[in-house]
């Protein structure tokens, strides 16, 4: 074998090994989801069987159709979408503004304010949701959409992510160049910072969407009327006192993951692919 041939073989073997490891990992990642989807097609008799088997032997759509009969899940789904979209829009805007300001500008109190913002993400929500609830009772916002969306309007991790991204990926020279040319701060922000933060914004978008979609305890506390339920809260209808209707639970959960998957697929390129960096000298 020539040297070149040996090198080619080695790189082929490496490639196969890498694909092998990645595929094994992918299997590991997918397994619980496969179980969830498979269970959503099983009848109750098949779910509690012992020893358990993964795939249904008599697959059925009953769980999916039963889902919509048991409760207005179309409405719950719509609510989830509405709340998630509203929250995502707000989080993206607030994170972009705050993240960029924290990253690129020095002003008194910057460090403290940023740490304060980050610290609020550390406190477990369970610890302060009652005082927040009491405050919303005071302004008569209980059982309203705005109450559900309110705590999801901002996302500390979003601000943090934009800050890190802007700090590392956008050179100060670019901003200086614009300033020297006489541009106002707002113009620099809009025309330089924002366009170059495309992938951070997209990342914040998907993460905010996921977080808002999965919101459970707050919507449950605040919504007294079924019409305001999101998917997560609606699914508790199948968790009985001592048992659960696993089939319908899994069916509802499977349906729940679809929108998030779609949003991710739409944003994936934007998040991960590089963008043309114009105006950067190498």
């Amino acid at each position, binding site marked *: 074998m020539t040297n070149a041939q040996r090198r080619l073989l080695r790189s082929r073997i490496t490639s196969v090994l890498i694909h092998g490891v990645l595929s094994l990992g992918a299997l590991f990642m997918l397994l619980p989801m496969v179980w969830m989807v498979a269970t959503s097609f099983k009848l109750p*008799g098949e779910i*509690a069987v012992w020893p358990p088997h993964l795939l249904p032997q008599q697959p059925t759509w009953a769980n999916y159709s039963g889902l919509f009969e048991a409760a207005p899940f179309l409405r719950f789904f719509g609510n989830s979408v509405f709340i998630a979209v509203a929250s995502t829009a707000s989080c993206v805007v607030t994170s972009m503004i705050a993240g960029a300001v924290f990253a690129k500008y020095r002003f008194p109190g910057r460090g403290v304010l940023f740490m304060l913002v980050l610290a609020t993400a550390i406190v477990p929500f369970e610890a302060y949701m009652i005082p927040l*609830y009491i405050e919303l009772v005071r302004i008569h916002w*209980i*059982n309203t959409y705005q109450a559900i969306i309110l705590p999801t309007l901002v996302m500390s991790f979003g601000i943090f992510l934009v800050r890190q991204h802007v700090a590392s990926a956008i050179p100060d020279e670019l901003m200086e160049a614009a300033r020297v040319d006489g541009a106002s701060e707002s113009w620099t922000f809009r025309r330089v910072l924002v366009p170059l933060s495309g992938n951070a914004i997209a990342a914040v978008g998907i993460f905010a969407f996921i977080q808002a979609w999965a919101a459970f305890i707050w919507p449950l*506390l605040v919504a*007294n009327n*079924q019409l305001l339920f999101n998917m997560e809260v609606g699914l508790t209808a199948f968790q009985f006192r001592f048992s659960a209707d696993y089939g319908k639970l899994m069916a509802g959960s499977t349906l729940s993951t679809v929108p998030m998957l779609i949003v991710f697929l739409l944003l994936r390129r934007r998040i991960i692919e590089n963008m043309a960096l114009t105006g950067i000298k190498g």
Partner: protein
Amino acid sequence: MSALTGVGKLRRRDALALAGAAALAGTRSARAADTKLTIWTGYPEIQPVYQAVAAEYAKTHPGVTFDFFSTSLREAEQKLTAAVPTGTGPDIFDIGTNISINFIDNQLIEPNPPDIDAHLKSGVWGKFTVDFFTLDGKTYGLPFLEGSRASMYWNKAYFQEAGLSGPPATFPELIEAAKKLVKIDSQGRMTRSGISLRLSGQGSGIGEKFRYILEAAGGSLIEQKGPGKWHNGYDNQAGRDALGFYVDAVQTWHIDDPKVPHDADAFASGATAMLFRESWVIGEIQSKNPKLDYGVAPIPAWKAGMPRMMLLQPEGVYVNGQSQNKAAAWDFVKFLTNARGGMKLTEVTGWLSPRTDIDWKPLLAKTPQFEVFVAPPSDIKYYVEPVLTAFDEVESRLADRLTASYIDPSLKGNPDAIAARIHDMAQQTDKILKDAKLYG
């Protein structure tokens, strides 16, 4: 105090209703115009029953409309404890005594009005049940469903296979039977447990299952010495026997193991031969494995000559002390807990009504296994969960320590170590009671 949930339009209607009801002072009937009653339940499977009963009620009470909310138990408890103290709670709710006692203590639930009080004591409900809803001489709420009467499920096919004639009547018999029923495969793994005990997990459920054994052995979790004075009731031979039973079951006789499946799912699928549980398992078996050949018998006596014990845990429906429609609410609650409501409850969900005047024959004809739950043998002795604020914590903290003890090898065959462990746990129980100023 801030009004109920609902849109502004309804508040005006409620105000009219209130004025109307006030004018009709003395009569409690819900002839008030357009009343909306909100009902919250922690049993999603029971919401259809509420809705069906409400629909019937609405036929004879036009102008009363209902709004329902249900979610899983822990979440319902969280929601109620956030909403009721802040005035945003429902008119009617069902909840266990662990929460209701806190509401009562803080005047968020009021004592029953005189006619409801008389109704509760009218003889429809047994003395035990009535006492359970009485605190300091006043009654609160009406019983809606029986939450326990846990009994012993036994797999007839497995018993026959093992050459056993019938269910055990005493614990020594149970142990012998379990030893014959357990199945261990060639690699030493248990594939079928003789009896499915609650060995692991979290929460007061572990304590509750421990009490089945403890009470049978003659002990109790806490004992009352006088009004407001309680202390532990298991730092004695009964407590040691009960813990010893669990330790031996797992480590000496090998009739159960944390690694095998447990509970209703296990019994329904045949992964265990015996199980102590409530009546809802019958519904599970019907939906998951209707061909299962099984029976239900009372939990055995600790030994011959001792009584068989049964836990009663009636759950109540309460009217919110801050409801704007108390009269209408109580009227509906009375309707809900009548005999027809009780029958509907059992038909739809398998939960039983604690009323003594229901004719169970049609139910028993279809499913004879209900017999022990609806008509327990007359020699059975009942016990209930003490109604005090600290009890949940007593039970939960005991549970935290029990699961570790069951599999602790240092306790195996070591009565002194077991006695020391029980003493330790009892001291923790007493400490909790002291902290809550309920010790005595």
